[in-house]
């Protein structure tokens, strides 16, 4: 860690010394071999190594680091666990990376007023674990919740299967403390949901670390439901499954979660988890309803009827809590299991109006055929968020080209259907070229003006999210294996 032998950082020595004084030498990585770990996140296609990596433990340290970066006119950016799938923590142009994973305290839990205060490095699932037995939980549950941090969730406005009913991260963030791009500590919102002034805490959520560095978060706590029913709908055709999804939402039922997994992913899941999935089926739906116990059987029966009417072979119900947990474990680790199917994979994160899932699925499969790329699918189907996964061999350059073209065509199809290119992963660097297709010149201009209100020198995480600033300078030509949601 202290190795000066391979000190290759191009930053001024004076800045590095200052950082070491602020953080302590134990919290500063300068050796290239150490810094290389941080050259990318879950989006591994593009890489850029930070010049120095620091591990602050307090808000004051973060403020001091940012002030130093400003004095030396050096770019900087925050990073949580690095599970971003869009390159949100790629340090374009190098500079100083602030890794916040040492700020892991849950500072307050207030059940009476339903909020908790956490530091940004708290791993998502730790908060819900800390709440065990209280009757409350933290609702946003991205599949990476065992690793990702709440600070990172705030940056990307993370979702997860249960956000269908309970909302995404922004619906659960009451306030943030942050350090401005010029090094000033400030607070927006707090325990009370109605702060005076603009909803700037709401604006911070999903800003992908480009407005300020979040150092503390006030989150809403959600009451555990009294009861839950989890079902597994088994379908002999994907079309029947997607039509069932459309019919459930169209009937005005908002389940807690409604997920679809197609045959090929199911096979991989079965190899990994031996859950007992019906391997001869073409698609399964995981459907969960929760709420007042007295009403759940009726909701379950209604959903079973809709699925059967859509042609479901059968609808099983999770027998007990253990069985339910196994099912969710399998779903949330789907992408780990897909690694068995191919040497490399890339996933997309498009969204379509939720009743258009059937048409979108067909479109995806047509695009896969057109480019001769195998695509398997796992969808947050209830809110129209698709995750088609393209399988390929990165040693074959022609496959890489076809994967990029197919991915682009899928996202364009989402836009054509009135949707979005990202439901929960973010723009980062990955989808920056799509911003011009989704937003007008005015839209992007106004977004840039909002950024300059917060981040006037554009030193904080430059060249992310908005395509207006100079080219990002990274060629996109080598998709490789990605761990995804």
């Amino acid at each position, binding site marked *: 860690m202290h190795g000066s032998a391979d000190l290759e950082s191009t930053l001024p020595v004076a800045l590095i010394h200052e950082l070491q004084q602020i953080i302590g030498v134990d919290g500063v990585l300068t050796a290239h071999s150490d810094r290389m770990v941080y050259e990318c996140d879950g989006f591994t296609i593009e890489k850029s190594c930070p010049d120095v990596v620091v591990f602050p433990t307090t808000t004051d340290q973060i403020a001091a680091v940012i002030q130093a970066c400003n004095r030396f006119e050096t770019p900087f950016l925050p990073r949580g666990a690095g599970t971003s799938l869009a390159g949100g923590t790629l340090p374009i142009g190098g500079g100083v990376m602030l890794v916040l994973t040492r700020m892991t305290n849950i500072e307050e839990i207030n059940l*009476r*007023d339903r*909020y908790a205060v956490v530091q940004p490095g708290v791993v998502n699932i730790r908060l819900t674990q800390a709440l065990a037995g209280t009757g409350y939980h933290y609702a946003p549950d991205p599949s990476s919740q065992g690793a990702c941090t709440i600070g990172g969730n705030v940056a*990307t406005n993370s*979702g997860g299967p249960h*956000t269908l009913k309970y909302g*995404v991260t*922004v*619906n659960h963030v009451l*306030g943030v403390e942050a350090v*401005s791009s010029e090094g000033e500590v*400030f607070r927006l*919102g*707090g325990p*009370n*949901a*109605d*702060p*005076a*002034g*603009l*909803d*700037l*805490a*709401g*604006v911070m*959520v*999903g800003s992908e670390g480009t407005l300020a560095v979040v150092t503390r978060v006030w989150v809403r706590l959600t009451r555990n439901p*009294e009861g839950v029913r989890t079902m597994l709908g088994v379908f002999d055709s994907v079309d029947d499954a997607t039509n069932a999804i*459309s019919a459930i*939402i*169209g009937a005005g039922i908002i389940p807690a979660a409604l997920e679809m997994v197609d045959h090929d992913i199911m096979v991989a899941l079965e190899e990994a988890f031996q859950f007992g999935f019906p391997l001869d089926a073409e698609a399964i739906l995981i459907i969960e309803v929760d*709420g*007042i116990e*007295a009403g759940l059987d*009726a909701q379950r029966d209604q959903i079973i009827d809709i699925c059967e009417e859509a042609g479901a072979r059968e609808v099983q119900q999770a027998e007990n809590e253990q069985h339910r947990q196994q099912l969710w474990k399998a779903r949330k680790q789907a992408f780990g299991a897909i690694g068995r199917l191919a040497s490399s994979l890339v996933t997309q994160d498009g*969204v379509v*109006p*939720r*009743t258009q899932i059937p048409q979108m699925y067909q479109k995806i499969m047509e695009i896969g055929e057109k480019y001769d790329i195998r695509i398997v699918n796992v969808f947050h189907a209830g809110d*129209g968020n698709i995750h088609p996964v393209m399988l390929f061999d990165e040693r074959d350059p022609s496959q890489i080209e076809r994967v990029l073209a197919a991915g682009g065509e899928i996202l364009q199809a989402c836009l054509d259907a*009135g949707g*979005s290119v990202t*439901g929960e992963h*973010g*723009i980062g660097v990955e*989808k920056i070229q*799509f*911003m011009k297709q*989704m*937003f007008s010149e005015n*839209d992007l201009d*106004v*977004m840039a*003006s*909002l950024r300059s*209100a*917060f981040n*006037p020198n554009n030193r904080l995480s430059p060249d992310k*999210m908005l395509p207006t600033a100079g080219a990002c300078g990274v060629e996109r030509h080598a998709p490789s294996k990605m761990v995804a949601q």
Partner: protein
Amino acid sequence: MQSLQPGTVEELAGLVEQAYEQSVPMYPLGGQTALHYGLPAKTDGWGISTEKLNRVIDFPVKDLTLTVETGITIQALADMLANEGLMLPLDVPQQSQATLGGVIATNCNGPRRFGYGTVRDYVIGIQAVNGKGQLFHGGGRVVKNVAGYDFCKLLTGSMGTLGIISQATVKLKPVPEEAVTVAVSLDDGATVENCIAMLMESPTVPVAVELLYGARWSEYAGDPNRRYTLAVQLAGTESEITWGQQRLADDLKACGAPGAFALSSEAHVALWQQIQEFPAAEHELTIQVKTVSSGAVPVIEKCTETDPQCTIQSDIGNGVVTVGFEEMPETGISGLVVSQLGPLATVYHGHVETLRCPAPEDLTLGTMWGQLSGPQWLHNRVKEQFDPRGLLNPGRFVYQ
């Protein structure tokens, strides 16, 4: 003041651009039900009305979303949604006049926020014209979307100071099969607090929890001789409601509040109508204290101590306390808001706003909006970016 009614968003953008070029102040107008909310305008300018911008752009019923121009009244919107068994559960006063744009700009929320959330949870796409005449949008028409900065959050509650909101996409909810009110009369703050703490955790998941004080509410109280009426709204299927009512009555009794009863359906409708309209009702002085839930009882007790004749309606599960005074308290507005209630609200992480007062010209930033959350410089910088000449609703909001 001259009032202009653009017929299309392009016309709207053109008007704003013209005003920008001539540096004319602009006052966005919806249904004009909340003109007294915010500091009074001090300079003349153009009123820009969204009255003619009331078209439905897209209503894919089965996607549970709706895209409309923002001049549509909440009543027209509600009627259209009710025909499809859907709702936008925001409880807006003066619905036949109030517009969707005004509701978003003022972040107008009511009692059912406890179960259904607030404006910011429903607006998923937004279009507006900023102070330079740029027509821009954020979000989209799908329920999950993280592309770009969240202008929906930025414009919700921005009081027309960053842009004139011209179109919005909202999420919708199915109308529940049934709704019922369980009410009980209570005497003291300690029992109220017991009941609220229980209701926060209740498996019956109420959609609204209201604490009411004052003669106006006595017809709904079981016992008019007691100080407070607690009204809890449950919504759901018949079996959920049947179970919930009984469970609530039992749990309230265990908290020291026996005698809970279900209102007749007529009384239920009348009560929630009256609660919804209360913040807009005529009083000499109406203030609103917004704290965390546990701050509500201390705030309410302070207010009744100051003036036992006041009327209170509190979304107590969310810590929102609206107080109507028939007479100006002896301390005057600043004594009440700044000296008495302000510090108490601060203890409970909140602030005080003035909704209606006899001499609005005497209101200050402090008495109107209370303690600003977030740095002044950041608010000012955002304002400068969206409205560099300071023409949108000048002087009415928190910038200085």
